[in-house]
């Protein structure tokens, strides 16, 4: 059981280049999230999805797009990379759980992205 898998693990881009980060989960979770983690800033939510075919903006969505065409995959796109997007990106998934309790998030290992 792989859990949450992120590809690639590392990438270096030049300013203006585009790329897509892939997140795949095998737990049949409904909810998926993309975060960026920067020193001293904790985790900030970029976009999230509450089910296949749905996406929503988080705290810092500018410069990113997402798609959830299949329940198990959540793609994060950078159309024109900027140095400010240098960060570590984490994908997470969770299940709504029951009416009594929410389930915690399961995180991928992260993608370290550098924009030159």
């Amino acid at each position, binding site marked *: 059981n792989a859990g949450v898998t992120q590809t690639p693990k590392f990438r270096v881009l030049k300013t203006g280049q585009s790329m897509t980060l892939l997140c795949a989960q095998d737990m049949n979770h409904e*909810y998926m999230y993309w975060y960026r983690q920067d020193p*001293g800033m*904790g985790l900030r939510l970029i976009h999230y999805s509450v089910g296949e075919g749905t996406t929503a903006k988080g705290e810092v969505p500018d410069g990113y797009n997402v798609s959830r065409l299949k329940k198990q995959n959540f793609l994060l796109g950078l159309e024109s990379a900027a140095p400010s997007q240098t960060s570590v990106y984490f994908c997470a998934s*969770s299940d709504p759980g029951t009416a*009594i*309790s929410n389930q915690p998030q399961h995180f991928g*290992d992260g993608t370290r992205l550098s924009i030159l």
Partner: protein
Amino acid sequence: AQSVSQHNHHVILSEAASLELGCNYSYGGTVNLFWYVQYPGQHLQLLLKYFSGDPLVKGIKGFEAEFIKSKFSFNLRKPSVQWSDTAEYFCAVETGGSYIPTFGRGTSLIVHP
């Protein structure tokens, strides 16, 4: 919008010392509370969670946290830390039914052997 504050940004302890990391949040309604740990070079893992019931929650590796509703707090504690507890610790708060947690900025803990 709710906020989550972790007042201790960096904590340095010696092995066997006691630990308490603060977490306060701003939302006044029903909340779900989490503490996550991130070991160096790894992803976040759940330490413990609180949804309802006993406000003293026990998690993995000897950690516990106490929910004090009147103080809007969910502090993490461990009576005796080990070198292997060196990590970054994140508090997260979900407002009831949102499924979208807000994370604190994290506390970096270094434990000297």
